[in-house]
């Protein structure tokens, strides 16, 4: 959004003054109210709906992001990998950006997708339990994020929603199954009611005596069981956007505050073991510059902010877990 020079100067002077003044009265490092609900998409393997700065009275406004994970079975020939794949996509609803043309909206979607995908699909975060049959089938995890409305700080919202949805994701348990061809008379071939996977014999030579003479497939251990939690759920990172004005930095900017910030530094932190911070990504956005000593201080500040956000989000995720799983199974047992 473009704001006039007068308004921009008014906000900047407020942010640079001592004590700092923000248009909505928050402190520089205060977040707006963040609300999170998991399990909002029952057809997905994991989902979450997160909003920052929503009006508590009528639920309008604020930055709202929906995240959902969907697992698909992928064969190695179709581009899958033995250990599975993670693909992230961000879609911007045209309602969230009414002033952007179609092309500009696609460009924005692409830029957001690039940041989220290159961070979350990095091999260092890859979950272990996406394998099915080595050499044949594996899980493809599609993480789709939809921005329903944007009132500033969309990067933090995207990563928080992604972490929540991935934390909530359950991978169905599979079991390796073999079908052995029965030895029949000269007729040979498949018996009635037997399911032989013909694709297993494609491209194999009749002279290849090492080839196993049976098909390999997998089955779900329990059709009704959602599965085990996705591996590495503590490792998923969070983003802290530090908006810089001369002499100070502030968090959780609204749209006008973002227009005023000369440059934004995105630092994406993960905490592998508690209190062991790891930087999973860094970007700078905007026409301003920083010195490297400022950047080093900002890194430390971002780590402290990330810890706070992590603690808050984790507490809420555990609460959601209790609400949906434990309470549900308790009420089921008491019925």
């Amino acid at each position, binding site marked *: 959004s473009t704001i006039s020079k007068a308004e921009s100067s008014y906000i900047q002077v407020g942010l640079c003054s001592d004590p700092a003044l923000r248009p909505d009265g928050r402190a520089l490092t205060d977040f707006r109210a963040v609300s999170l609900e998991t399990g909002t998409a029952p057809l997905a393997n994991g989902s979450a709906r997160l909003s920052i700065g929503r009006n508590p009275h009528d639920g309008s406004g604020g930055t709202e992001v929906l995240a959902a994970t969907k697992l698909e079975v992928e064969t190695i020939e179709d581009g899958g990998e033995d250990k599975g794949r993670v693909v992230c996509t961000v879609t911007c609803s045209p309602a969230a950006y009414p002033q952007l043309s179609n092309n500009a909206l696609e460009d924005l979607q692409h830029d957001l997708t690039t940041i989220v995908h290159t961070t979350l699909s990095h091999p*260092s975060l890859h979950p272990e339990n996406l394998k099915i049959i080595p050499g044949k089938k594996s899980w493809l995890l599609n993480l789709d994020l939809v921005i329903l409305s944007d009132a500033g700080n969309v990067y933090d919202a995207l990563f928080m929603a992604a972490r929540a949805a991935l934390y909530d994701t359950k991978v169905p348990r599979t079991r390796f199954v073999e079908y052995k061809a029965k030895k029949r008379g000269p007729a040979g071939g498949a018996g009635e009611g037997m399911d032989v996977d013909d694709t297993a014999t494609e491209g194999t030579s009749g002279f290849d005596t090492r080839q196993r003479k049976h098909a390999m497939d997998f089955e779900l251990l329990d059709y009704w069981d959602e599965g085990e939690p996705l591996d590495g759920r503590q490792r998923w990172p969070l983003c802290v956007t530090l908006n810089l004005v001369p002499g100070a930095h502030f968090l959780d900017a609204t749209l006008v505050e973002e227009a005023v910030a000369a*440059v934004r530094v995105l630092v994406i932190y993960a905490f592998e073991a508690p209190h062991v911070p790891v930087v*999973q990504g860094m970007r700078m956005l905007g026409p301003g*510059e920083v010195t490297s000593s400022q950047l080093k201080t900002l890194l430390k500040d971002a780590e402290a902010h990330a810890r706070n956000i992590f603690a808050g989000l984790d507490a809420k995720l555990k609460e959601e877990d209790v609400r949906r799983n434990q309470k549900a199974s308790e009420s089921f047992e008491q019925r």
Partner: protein
Amino acid sequence: MAQSGFDRRRINGPEESFSPTYDDGGDIQDQWKVGRPRVGRNPTNIRPIFLQPGLIDQANGSAYIETGNTKIACAIYGPRQSKNVAFHDKGRLNIEVKFTPFSCPRRRAPIRDAEDRSIAMAIHQAILPSVRLETLPKSTIDIFITIIEADGIEGCIASGSVAASAALADAGIEVFGLVISTSAAIVGDDVWLDPTHQEASNSKGTFVLSCMPALGTVTSIWQNGSISPSKVVTCMDTCEKQCADMHAVVAQTLRESTS
């Protein structure tokens, strides 16, 4: 009938293409294992750079850069009038990156790709703070970057930003300073500067730092992968020092080309 990849307007090559295999006993790089020292150079050595401004006469400014196997040509047209767009008081910087089909081991289709835009955005962020756009209202500067041969995405971003900055100086567009970029990869415990594609894919994390050594400010940081905060600080220091060294060389090349 028409599968993806069938382009009616062009003479299509075979649908599937494979790079030829050579019987030379295997690449030394393939035998590299974690924990071994770097093959061929020191961790903090960058590959020699060849930078030549002014090779494309038709453009207002141009530069060609070669670092190892990465070859990038950059042409600048502008500042020119922004057509059909509402008034804007600051100039626009428009960057387009294109990979030639023969730039990577696997042939790339000539259509515009997702990866083209990511590299364009990274280079845009690297040079945007250096250009004095407030002196160019209603104007656009078009920067066209052609990647003739690519050896790693980080290398392309770093070399592309240096080429773009040199081309801006060659075009006579006012800038606050030259932008120099260095890429790095964290392999094991070491920081390796200017990684090749092979080295970057074996690393825990990659890092591209763009800065203006003349002013001592950083214009862009692009980091991926899992790196501890202290390693990030070490990386930043190593890259900044390297950028300062490169700046002298680039400035000297520009002086020689204009005299």
